[in-house]
């Protein structure tokens, strides 16, 4: 068990950097947005990893049960709202991409830059 005590953080690091790789190397704007949402999910994972307490349970008090250990509710509140905010901001990004497609006819970054350059 001790061996896996940090596994969550390692998974966080790899997922975070996978999303980051998509954001910096992919030319396609939708792929960049998908990479950004992966990056975002990795941050969610980091926060939720920190809320876990050994032998704990979700912070909802059960009637008639005493001596319960609860996980930390604060990161849960932050991430709960962040998930819904995340989908709205992703939608805003997608809307911008749709408008770019309509005025440039492409969503590839280098083609857009070429068009900007020669016009």
């Amino acid at each position, binding site marked *: *068990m*001790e061996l*896996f*005590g*940090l*596994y969550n*953080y390692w*998974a*966080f*690091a*790899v*997922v975070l*950097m*996978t999303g980051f*790789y*998509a954001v*910096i190397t*992919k030319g*396609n704007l939708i792929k960049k947005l*998908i990479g950004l*949402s992966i990056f975002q999910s990795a941050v969610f*994972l980091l926060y*939720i990893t*920190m*809320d*876990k*307490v050994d032998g704990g349970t*979700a*912070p*909802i*008090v059960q009637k008639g049960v005493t001596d319960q*250990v609860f*996980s*930390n*509710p*604060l*990161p*849960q*509140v*932050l*991430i*709960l*709202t962040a*998930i*819904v*905010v995340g989908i*709205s*901001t*992703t939608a805003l990004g*997608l*809307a911008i*991409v*749709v*408008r770019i497609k*309509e*005025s440039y*006819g492409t*969503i*590839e970054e*280098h083609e857009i830059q070429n068009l900007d350059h020669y016009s």
Partner: protein
Amino acid sequence: MVILFAVFLLTLLVLTAVAIVRTENLFVAVMLTGIFSLLMAANFFVLDAADVALTEAAIGAGITTVLFLGALALTAEHEKSVSAGRWLSMGVVVVTTLILVYATFDKPRLGDPEAPVHLHVAPWYLEETPELIGIPNVVTAILGSFRGYDTLGELFVIFTACIGVLFLLSGPRGQHLPPDDMALSSTAHGLRHHLIPKVVGRLLIPFIVLFGFYVQFHGEYGPGGGFQAGAIVAAGIILYALLEGEAQALKAVPRSVLMGMVIGGAMLYGAVGIAGIALGGNFLDYSVLADNPVKGQQFGILVIELGVGITVCGALLSIFHAFAAREPV
């Protein structure tokens, strides 16, 4: 033992993330994003975050896929591969990953009760919630009352994002005028000709909306609340739009009603705060709303959760309609 499940799920998560980035077909990437979201929800649940898992389930299972597919229909399905600078960025990413992994050796291990994060305000919240607020779900108590300012801010971010999407997508198109015959529009038909999905879907819609209301009003006693409920109800109405066509769904819930929901929910939240001031308390201080401070807190949380639910539902539906109504170039 459950920790081993978490390790397995996290490994699958990492593999899925890598597969999403590797594929060049954007449709496949969106499908894999669906799997990624399911894995995230399972992970959250294993890590004792039931409310967060419910939010991820409500958002990730339907709405994310629908929005991305809507955007793909308006743009392109394949990406063109660019190889310039790939090795350089791969190097940067690998080095950063190694640094991050090295940094984790200073972190407390998973579930350590002595970790700094558990020693600051969290014990106070857990101890005081039953006395000050008197509801079983501590997450809802913090969301609604202790950190009500945060939630108000988040709500206005959603509001602003919704306004932004509407500004971008409901204006006139750059090059062409929209075609006159809307009958040609593919999204106008929906899946009306598929009998079996239509019958089953129609049967499900009332249950989805009912379950949304259950999540909304049961949020103080179990996992749930306004954010989840708004997303679930929006998913139910999006299902109706998929089955009957987008125009039909707009007839059932017109745009003006959606805008009213987006604005009204946020106003309701703000009004509760103002009412607190009017009755002699601070902004968003619910204790003064009733004779008994605990009753006042419960009433305040109930109303602001309702405001959150209404705004989230209206915003997600407005965003969906903005994408669905746009004609592809």
